[in-house]
């Protein structure tokens, strides 16, 4: 039966860790804007086309 105390302690620690992760996420601004991140992933996959003459001048862009 004692094993259940260990399990409860362990699960509570895990739960508190998740709470801490959530708090960190909020504080780092991840909940500030719920619209743009969803759109952001739409564009990233496509490389800039080579037809545009000036896009190659700055590879870091």
């Amino acid at each position, binding site marked *: 039966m004692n094993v259940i105390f260990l399990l409860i302690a362990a699960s*509570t620690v895990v739960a508190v860790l998740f709470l801490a992760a*959530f708090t960190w996420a*909020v504080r780092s601004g991840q909940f500030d804007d719920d*619209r*743009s991140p969803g*759109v952001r992933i739409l564009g990233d996959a496509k490389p800039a*086309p080579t037809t545009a003459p000036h*896009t190659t001048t*700055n590879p870091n862009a």
Partner: protein
Amino acid sequence: MQHLMFVSSQPTAPPELCHVQPTTAQRVLCYHCGDTCREEHLVHDEKDFCCQGCRAVYGLLQESGLCDYYAISDQPGVKEKADVTELRPELFDIPEVRDRLVEYSEDGITRVTLNIPQMHCSSCIWLLENLQRVEPAIIRSRVRFSEKELSITFREERFSLRALVELLRRIGYAPLLNRPQDKAARRGAGVPRMLYVKLGIAAFAFGNIMLFSFPEYLGADVSDRTLLRGFQFLSLAFSIPVLLFSSQEFFTSAWAGIRTRQVNIDQPIALGILALFARSTADVLLETGPGYFDSLAGLVFFLLVGRWYQAYTYQALSFDRTLADFLPLVVIRKRGEVEEAVGVGDLVQGDHIVVRDQELVPVDSVLRAGIGNIDNSFITGEPLPVRRAVGDTLRAGGRQRGAAIELEVLRPFEQSHLKRLWEEHAATSAQRRPAMPRMIDAVARRFTVAVMLIAVAAGIYWAGRDADMVWPVVTAVLIVACPCALALSMPFAYGHTMRLLGRRGVFLRDAEVVERMAHVNAVVFDKTGTLTAREAFELRFIGSALTADEEQRLRSLARNSAHPLSAVLYQGLKGEVSDAVEVEETAGKGIEGTVRGLAVRIGAAEFCGGTKLHMEQGEAQVHVAVGGVYRGCFAVHKRARSGMHAAVQGMRGMAHTHLLTGDTHVDADVSAVFDAQAMHTGCSPTDKSAFIQQLQGGGDRVMMVGDGLNDAGALALSDVGMTVSETSAALTPASDAILDARSIDRLPQALRLTRAARRVVIMSLGLSLMYNVVGVSYAVSGHLTPLIAAILMPLSSVTVVGFVTLATTWSARRLWANDRS
């Protein structure tokens, strides 16, 4: 709807004009901005464009491989309008302006944050975040959509701030010169981060305590007391941060109410939270029961969800503005032949300043050189420019249309007409509109008193019978009577109504406006700019009818002029455009040129050889001559908005309608929908404010619908001030609500919806009171077990929230059953 376009700054590609066969069933929409195209419009790349500006933006994006812009949302573009482009990019070269926007600048790398009001959809975000494909000097750009802000990092040695602003302007996202600096000015934009943390902690405690409570509720094997005791102490530990941290704001608000001796809804809530914690802690310590910790955490969690929704629905629109948002910060002062940029506040009497096309006159002044074509739409809503000659006095706030003019400052900005008008407005806003009792306050007052009486009565009853039962019964009453569902019904009902209205072009400042709107029984309309469109005109020809051939020639010539009246003519006349040669435009007189061998003139009466006619107020005249012969004159007058009849007549049976106008005459199409005694002409801004107060004195709840700065006082005084706006960036005075001009016909339904929302709230109050009665009946008889509390509390909250959300959605559906969206 017709829009006047001024695209003089656009690169002039040869327009590919074509005739599209008029198909009555199908309207052709502009591929870029989604406006309806005229029969004759631009076609490029097999796509339709309504104007040169939209086509140019498409060309720019296509060249940079950014056509995904059009794939993410349909017709995402923003049409470049003359109103919006008052911004002068060279202002961004001025150090004070630059300092305000630049957040970081080192080693030639600069980061700025700009406010872009036109940002409205997914395509906007995508395009603005991919600007580096258009301009390689841009390193990174990030959007904060909720605040309509764009942060851009770029290499300044290769690309100036001014060039950046010009680029944004070219693609239709002109930034504002001013950015709200302090956090207080941005209050309500987005949800405060701390609220998420509080919500997270409450949710964490709620979930875990509920799990800890299951063995107790389910009557699990209780042979091991240690385990149950352990769970009880863990629950106690988890609920401490909920009490001390998550429920802070309920205690502060309740305390603020006590200090000002006002009863508010947070007092019974705070009392309930305290009773829950005290009772549960006592139960656990004295081993008299498992406590109500899950109800405590659940209660705080649901209440915080209500707070979150309230903050979430708050509109990210700028409702509060200062005069500085409207005026150019910097003007060009002329000393001899030297022109220099100075601040508006530094101007003194006798200074000479230069005001160019589309710029505002910043101070009261006298015209010294050039011809003034002053558009006072910002002040009065009247869009037709007024002619001013050398020696005339110009008031601050008018916009010059046409060639640059030179002015002599009459009095410093501090003493100008505009400043006085604004201060009058600020003073009236401070004067406060008559207070409207909020329903929640009245309910809270009665509710709190009733709960107190029941608790005391139950205590006295049990004291006589069984003294041991007093503490459990009194705490149980306070726990179960906690008005959680009551506190949730209003934010959800009104917040959801705001969202429903926002989808239909009516944007409210906050949820409280919904309730104020529900009480409105008198609606006052401003005429100019509100019921009449800012940029839609009707042409009437005076003289012997023009032949199709003459119309075609006039239209061809009119296309060459940037004057607003020429643009009206160009759009109003028919015929295929041919080239005009030897075109010469004389400022203040008109334009002449040769079209297919015949000399054509458009302009003032004397310029064309005619005589000046007497016109009704608000009408302009354009004279024309073809082949050296005077042909007659066009009377141009503003057209009433198409939804105007529906807007005014739909109010019948709900509210009285009144019309206020500064003009001395009301056009027939507008006067047809109002009662004769409900129209008041010749009103000054002070008259308008006085009229609102007079109506309120008679017991009416007044909604003012206006637009110009001359309505600002009336808007601030009325119970609900609503401004009509054609673009999201248009200059509108402070108000409670913004109405998209295209949605003006939806105003009666909007009013009906707010009334329906109020009825929904009343019904939901009944529902939540029913739960309270059930709970209290358990409590006074001493049968409120933790299990019953744990079921009743979430059940009541969820059903009330569900009910108000569904009921308001259903009301909106019913009201807009036959609507276009």
